[in-house]
């Protein structure tokens, strides 16, 4: 609006009236959603308790333990417990990783709350015990909790506690968002890369402005495993520990959604055609950036950091740095499987892949072997069994004719290697990596030693029969390509 330089008297009165009306409205209101007078900026001190928690490592009705996040618990006061633990988790098929956790899982459970709620948080450092049914070889150590959703003194609330200690503090989320939480004990990089992170979803006071049919949490993070120098094993399989050098140079082996290589391919997020889906996406890092994309759809809304005030419309990807997040909403246009990827494809090939399954059928692993025609099945019994073993144990790391994954593309392997070499390799990659130059050169290239698959000689021969079959077939497929 533009005013004339010298308005006539009546005009001036009108302007004055207008200004005072505006002032009155500003006083009475529509409330600023970020009005500091409504925020909690006077948190009470944290307390250290002697009694340690027992029983479950996480508790609280506002917590969700899987990708399918529960609706908001309407209670204003939310009491939650997230204890730390050490345990071995499987981050990729056959890769047993020595993890440090919140709530005995990686990622930790998701807390859902609303601006203005009161969170009563407590945590026992239980790294000195081993949860029933889990295994750990890791020495107990100090840990801490840093909630990005809180505004509090880090020296007080985020202090590290020793094994056996319990810390408790309250906080009030002042801003809506999708916030990271993580351990902040030095070396922070190592604590995060070992699995100590999760999400707090904070809804605006008035809720979200849109309605959706499905809500899921997707957390991207990296793993930097190396074989345990002490040679521990679980079920005969080698244990991997954090590679403290590679994590510094950002040479990740896996970049994953929800804690597992291709985890959301194995367990797709379900939706129906026509439905509207809301994803709470957090990129933990610790060091990679995510260019989050869902193949086959467009984000109707992107709320950066999970705050509807930071709205973008019609986005193909959303770029997320470490500890950046977004809420993305999109329509599932028709029957199909919509592929979630980090469009930095180097990251996707490390496992940052997932599916929104709106096919109505039973989830399967289509994505994994879609280049091999369904009819291309060996008839020889040996090779058939070999193919079955391959699909059960090897496909997460190897493709046939689709390029390198975690390990080399195995198409042509019978031309590269002798059957004798293959038998020795399959029976004990570990021994070969110690003694065989070809194996050592492969390791140099692929960075991750292939875990021992516990194969018998008979299984190895079945696999080799299958390799010979597809190498024959490979020629045929190439020539018959459309």
């Amino acid at each position, binding site marked *: 609006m533009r005013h004339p330089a010298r308005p006539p008297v009546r005009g001036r009165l009108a302007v004055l009236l207008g200004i005072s009306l505006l002032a009155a409205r500003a006083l009475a209101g529509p409330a600023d959603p970020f009005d500091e007078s409504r925020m909690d900026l006077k948190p009470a001190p944290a307390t250290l308790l*002697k009694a340690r928690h027992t029983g479950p490592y996480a508790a609280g009705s506002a917590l969700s333990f899987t990708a399918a996040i529960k609706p908001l618990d309407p209670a204003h006061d939310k009491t939650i417990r997230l204890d730390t633990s050490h345990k071995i988790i499987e981050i990729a098929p056959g890769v047993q990783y020595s993890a440090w956790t919140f709530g005995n899982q990686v990622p930790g459970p998701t807390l859902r709350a609303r601006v203005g709620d009161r969170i009563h948080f407590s945590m026992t450092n239980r790294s*000195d015990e081993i949860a029933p049914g889990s295994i750990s070889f890791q*020495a*107990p*150590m*100090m840990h*801490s909790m840093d909630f990005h959703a809180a505004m509090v003194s*880090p*020296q007080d609330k*985020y*202090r*590290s*506690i*020793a*094994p*056996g*200690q319990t810390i408790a503090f309250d906080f009030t989320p002042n801003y809506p968002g999708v916030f990271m939480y993580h351990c*902040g*004990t*030095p*070396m*922070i*990089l190592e604590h995060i890369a070992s699995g100590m992170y999760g999400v707090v979803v904070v809804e605006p006071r008035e809720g979200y402005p849109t309605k959706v049919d499905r809500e899921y949490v997707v957390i991207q993070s990296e793993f930097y495993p190396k074989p345990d120098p002490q040679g521990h094993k679980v079920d005969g399989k080698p244990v991997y520990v954090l590679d403290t050098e590679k994590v*510094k140079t950002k040479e990740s082996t896996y970049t994953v959604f929800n804690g597992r290589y291709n985890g959301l391919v194995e367990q797709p997020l379900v939706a129906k055609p026509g439905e509207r889906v809301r994803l709470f996406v957090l990129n933990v890092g610790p060091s990679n950036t995510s260019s989050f994309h869902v193949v086959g759809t467009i984000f109707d809304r992107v709320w950066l950091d999970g705050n509807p005030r930071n709205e973008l419309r019609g986005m193909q990807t959303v770029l997320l740095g470490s500890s950046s997040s977004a809420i993305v909403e999109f329509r599932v246009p028709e029957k199909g499987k919509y592929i979630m990827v980090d469009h930095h494809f180097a990251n996707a090939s490390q496992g940052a892949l997932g599916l929104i399954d709106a096919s109505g059928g039973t989830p399967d692993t289509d994505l994994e072997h879609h280049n091999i025609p369904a009819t291309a099945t060996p008839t020889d019994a040996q090779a058939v069994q070999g193919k079955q073993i391959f699909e059960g144990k090897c496909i997460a790391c190897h493709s046939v004719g689709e390029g390198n994954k975690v390990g080399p593309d195995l198409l042509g392997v019978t031309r590269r290697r002798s059957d004798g070499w293959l038998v020795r390799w399959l029976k004990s990659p570990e021994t070969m990596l110690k003694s065989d130059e070809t194996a050592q050169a492969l390791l140099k290239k692929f960075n991750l030693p292939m875990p021992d698959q516990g194969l018998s000689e008979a299984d190895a021969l079945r696999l080799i029969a299958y390799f010979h079959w597809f190498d024959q077939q490979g020629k045929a497929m190439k020539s018959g390509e459309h």
Partner: protein
Amino acid sequence: MTGRCRAAAGLLLALGAATALACGHCIEDRVAAVYDYGVAQQAGREGLRVAYLGIAGRSAETAAAAAATGDALRGIAGVAPGTLRVAAAPAAAAFAWSGDEAALARILQTANRRLVAAGLRLELLRVWEAGRGLVEPPPRGAGGRM
């Protein structure tokens, strides 16, 4: 920015991620840097306590300072053999000791005398004791000169 300020910033940069990532100021972060569960267990078994110390001084957060601290503490009577731990960033040290608070004060006095030339000083941050866990040390003067 004063010259000294710039020098300090330069040092921080030189030290890199370790310092920048850790809060560094948090007492517990320093304790965590040298916390060794095995040492605490051993101390518990042998009726010892564990002292966690910050290393103060202008050039504290360096490998050289950590090494000097280790040298200064090693071999002092009362420091339990094999329990000494030092870290450069955050700058901290820990060891199990036998005896009372006055014994600890004497250990620190000896070490601090040895560290004067290097411009370093040890400050008691926390004490671990079986049954009590990690606790704040008694205020200065309460248990001998610390």
